[in-house]
């Protein structure tokens, strides 16, 4: 059975069981490397994507639930950012992706798909978050390497780069 959905601004028809969690579609059918399996229980944030600009857990979201909607993965974040900000062309990286590099924030980096997706969602809604707002927004995204302090700094840096924050 075919489902139509838009992923990273490309609309396509997916032939898969409608109850298949979106994560497996993105990983296997579309061969994307941003969203990744962490728990399958919506507990960790490893699989996060944006659906119409809102962060969701793709490991528990059935394909049928995103039919006709616009999905953005880590790979599509620069273009999504350009669209949000009416830029003529997409930058190579979303400012938060660049900030994560500049801060050398991660260790293994496996959770950073979710950290960056959630952080980008936060910055789109609140370009100048306080540290407390960052901590609250990011609280559902676990990091076993425990790099939270640098991740917070990366969001602050991205906020500055985007012309917001302090």
């Amino acid at each position: 059975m075919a489902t139509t959905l838009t992923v990273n601004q490309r609309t396509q028809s997916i032939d898969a069981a409608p109850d298949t969690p979106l994560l497996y579609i993105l990983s296997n059918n579309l061969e994307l490397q941003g969203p990744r399996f962490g728990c399958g229980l919506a507990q960790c944030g490893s699989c996060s994507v944006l659906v119409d600009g809102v962060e969701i857990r793709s490991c528990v979201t059935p394909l049928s639930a995103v039919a006709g909607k616009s999905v953005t993965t880590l790979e599509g974040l620069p273009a999504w950012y350009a669209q949000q900000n009416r830029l003529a062309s997409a930058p190579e990286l979303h400012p938060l992706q660049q900030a994560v590099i500049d801060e050398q924030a991660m260790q293994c980096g496996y959770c950073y798909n979710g950290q960056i997706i959630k952080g980008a969602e936060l910055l789109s809604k609140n370009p100048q978050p306080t540290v407390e707002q960052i901590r609250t927004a990011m609280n559902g995204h676990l990091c076993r390497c425990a790099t939270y302090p640098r991740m917070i700094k990366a969001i602050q840096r991205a906020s500055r780069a985007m012309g917001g924050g302090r």
Partner: protein
Amino acid sequence: MSSEFPATTFPRRDFLKAGGALLVGLTFAPGVGAQQPPGGAIAGPFTPDPEQLDTWIAIHADNTATIFLGYVELGQGNSTALLQIAAEELDLDMSQVLAARVETGKSPNQGGTNASASINRGGPRIRLAAADARQALLSRASERLGAPVERLTVSRGVVSVAGTPGQTVTYGALIGDRRFDVPYTGKAPVKDYRDHKVVGASLPRNDIPAKASGKYVYMQHVRVPGMLHGRVVRPRGQGAYGDGARVVRLDADSIRDIPGARVVRRRDFVGVVASEEWNAVRAAQQLRVTWDQPESLPTSPAALFERMRAAKTIDSVVMDRGGVDAAFAAARHVVSHRFDSPYQIHAGFGPNCAIADVKADSAVVMCSTQGPYATRAKIADVLEMPEGNITVRYYEGSGTFGRSCYDDVAQAAAVMSQETGAPVRVQFMRWDEHGWDNFGPAHTADVKIAANADGKLVAYEYHGWQHTWSVTETTAQLAAGRAASEGQDGRAQSLTPTNTGEMYALPNWRIVNHRVPGLQGYFKGAPLRSPLDLAISFGAEQVVDELAYLADMDPYIFRRQNMNGDRWLAVLNAAAEAAKWSPRKAAAALSKSRVVRGRGIAVGTHLSSYGAAVAEIEVDRNTGVIVAKRMYGAIEAGQIVNPGFVENQISGMLVQAASRMLKEEVTFSRTNVTSVDWVSYPILRCSEAPEVFPVVVKRQDQPSTGVGEEVIAAAAAAIANAFFDATGVRLREHPMTPSRVMSALRRA
């Protein structure tokens, strides 16, 4: 999706066929010389010969170099830092050096990437190999340019003659496309540390840009043609290691409605495969299996520790210096307590994953092992195939922090591929990863330490009980019928002077290790980052703190006058200075407020480096919630190759130590582990993370030692000591959960 060899991979065999390399390596024969470092490459069948120089470095025609490392990138940055060492000695730019993917048969066997070994053991070898290569290249350049070696200088792999502009030749032109055939000497001059430009610089990590953009290929992303998706089917949560797991009944029809799904069974190993991943996931959950689940586990966490203490242990006196008993009898202040530390889980963020392609007489296994050669032997065992017919290729997964179940998943994929005749990709589900991990073993201790009236430590006695590490992986147990077995006592799985007391100057010192037989009602064990050290420090550093209290002394000042040598003293001072520690007696100003604050200081190590930490915490006396607000961690690990990486390691250790001290504990019923996800095994979250202040104490003149594990013990104990400072009460078991805190406060 990834191809089999992404851009960072250099297929050695093809390269050699093309005859295209300067291949330089190290020899590890005894008697190489005083600068030969300990440990290192292991010669063996089907292993690149460490006596051959081409095991280590290749120079290409385009004036770049490939470095063959035996150590794997685990998110700690070693694949960048080791290249810094090579680039430094070769006078190459970092953009000119590349690390080859680690693979058995192509990469040197340097043992596992554990015990913080990469820079410690791997660094000197790469440095000496690079120095040999440089010398050989200069000798060729001297001939080519008609100038003595002494007049040659190198920059970015371009050799020039001093004072003769324009007279140059590149490394690539000298050697690319030809073999060098120069033996490793281990005697080529290496640069003086004062001349280092690349080593010691906080260069960025090579792997981070691709990880930030989504282009990095983790093991979990690898796919191969014709591959089936597999999942294991096991009881939800392991039982006692010695029991294994036994299938009583399996109803293969129970997954009949799932397209393409089928059962793979060998003895008590049960898995499912399907061509669609979601179908494999569903089938694994839906398959009806009845397991024999004996009630072998203790009735409670408290009963676990009693079982360990009552067990028929193998006891060894690891240290007995001076006259301990007499010293205690004569001492002014004596403190003696029992401490309990639970099993904890590696809990890699992405469950372990492997792909195996097993043919009749060969196999390729891709996985995230810390030791590809050790994994190859474990694969050979379950496949009953010679090691030389097996290739293990490393792909990074999520941070593993020790021997999590990566060998188990690799064996599972191998067995399922052998059974189905197709390549099989197995990824553990979260409950497999949490429930069937090789846990960091539980530990219980009696700690007794004494000081004289001047606050000098005079006696130290530590009795610790724990079992050692499991050897047989679960798949080998279930599929191949291999008996559960345990490792021998050894560094990091038993008490040693290094992890138990050596930080202090101790005239009278006794350590007794009580090895618990781990096959009788316990879990699988394995090294978990800074193994045993956290538990040891949790007890010993609290007792030291109590002595300071009895001696009416500030705990930092008390330690300062008892440290064992200048390097311990320097790292202790560094942590105290970072925290702007002002001396006062602990718990001197107890508050009646709902939220009370405290600070603690402690020292600790893993195997080789010096660590110290300060923690500042808040305790809510109404809820029992502890929040680590600020943590300061200092490390001294000899020569620092990349200070930025070390700071990142310290930061991670401080926060992870807070997580392990405040939250983490394996829970269980009589039959199974019950902490099988992030709700039943919580870890520290972003809102709970302390601010961190890492301090790197540099000793560039000293050999590098490890930095991946050396601050955990100090950080954990600093939190425990801060709790006393805040409340005047001691917690002698962790994690320091709200319920433990509340009952301790009520008792006080």
